[in-house]
């Protein structure tokens, strides 16, 4: 488990987290963040729609808190990568780590989807074929004492 990188702003009022990463959100660090062999089997073209790598075109290796990281747009957080990145393979590694993260269902966005999705949708979106449906049992909260107006 990594150090909690959340910090307060200098004013301390209100407390504000300025570094949100995947480990902070999920409370876990995953094997593919620490071991390159975990992602070697990922086929990027097979994992994306169309005749090329499609949306992964925009995914590149970035840096967060001085560590190489890929941004997971489904949870608005960085996924840090702790091994040495072979030169010239930065973007490829970033894309494979992200796809592995999404296909494994480890993205915090997927966790939120399980809990809060309001419409039926595949749990693992377009990343895994035939994944189970979530959001099919959403019950809207009811305010205690509230009554629907007549006719509704």
């Amino acid at each position, binding site marked *: 488990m990594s150090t909690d990188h959340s910090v307060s702003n200098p004013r301390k009022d209100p407390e504000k987290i300025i570094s949100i990463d995947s480990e902070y959100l999920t409370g876990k660090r995953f094997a593919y963040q620490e071991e390159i062999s975990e992602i070697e089997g990922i086929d990027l073209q097979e994992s994306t*729609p169309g005749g090329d790598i*499609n949306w992964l*075109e925009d995914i590149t290796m970035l840096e967060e808190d001085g560590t190489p990281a890929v941004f997971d747009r489904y949870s608005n957080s960085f996924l840090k990568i702790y091994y040495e990145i072979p030169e010239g393979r930065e973007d490829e590694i970033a894309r494979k780590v992200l796809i592995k993260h999404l296909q494994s269902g480890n993205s915090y966005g997927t966790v939120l989807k399980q809990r809060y999705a309001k419409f039926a949708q595949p749990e693992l*979106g*377009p990343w895994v074929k035939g994944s189970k449906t979530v959001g099919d049992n959403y019950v809207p909260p009811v305010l205690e004492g509230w009554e629907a107006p007549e006719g509704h």
Partner: protein
Amino acid sequence: MDAVAGESQITYDARGLVEVDDTVLGVAVVKDGKATIDAAELTTRKINLEIRSLVYEQGIEEVTILNPGGKHSLGVGILTRCKLTFEGSLGYFALGVIDGPEVTVNGRVGWSACENMMSGVVVINGNAGSLTGAAIRGGDLVIKGRVGARTGIDQKGGTIIVTGAAGSNTGFMMQRGRQLLLGDVGPHLGDSMYDGTLYVAGKVKSLGADCVPGEMTDEDLELVTRKMALYDLGSPPELQKFVCGKKLYNYDNLEPSERKLVL
């Protein structure tokens, strides 16, 4: 068949604009793993429920929608890999918030087609209205025709290709991604863009604030050549490249949380 779950909350509509009956009609004809829906007599909600039922619950991967009749908001929120073909024109906000589908529209589309698209491929064999690809975040959006104003407004990723002319304020406030504009472009191209790349083959009426010419690189040419080949658009013509002059905005001054919004 019961409603696709989560669709059962609307029970009353005072204005009479909403389809309140949320049952899936199950009118699609399925043959050899492919489905066809005749949408002529169906409301928008019924069509979308039918599509979702097919691709989410029945495992159908190819769906053809006949007679869409220019209805609005068709094909929205499809979040899985599948192939959709619309045989006819679509109205406003078609194919918004999709993630994964490969879609062909054999017709025209109205305003805001593919807004907030996350991934996938959409090929429109016809003209598109204004705000096409608004806030698109990924995937390929190909318009084999002309587009209105503000194509790719607030674009945060992905590739928009337009074979015909594009209207005013194309690429307005663009933040990432790329547009390949093969026809002429109206006034204020790339106005207030933060980042991203615009390639233009035709004449540009005028550039917007902070949009400046850039230099074509081998990477640019590789991308353009690859995308044009993918969509049978031939070889790349001579292109002008436009990028952000970075005089209006500076990422370094953004709060980390603000910076993430444009990733």
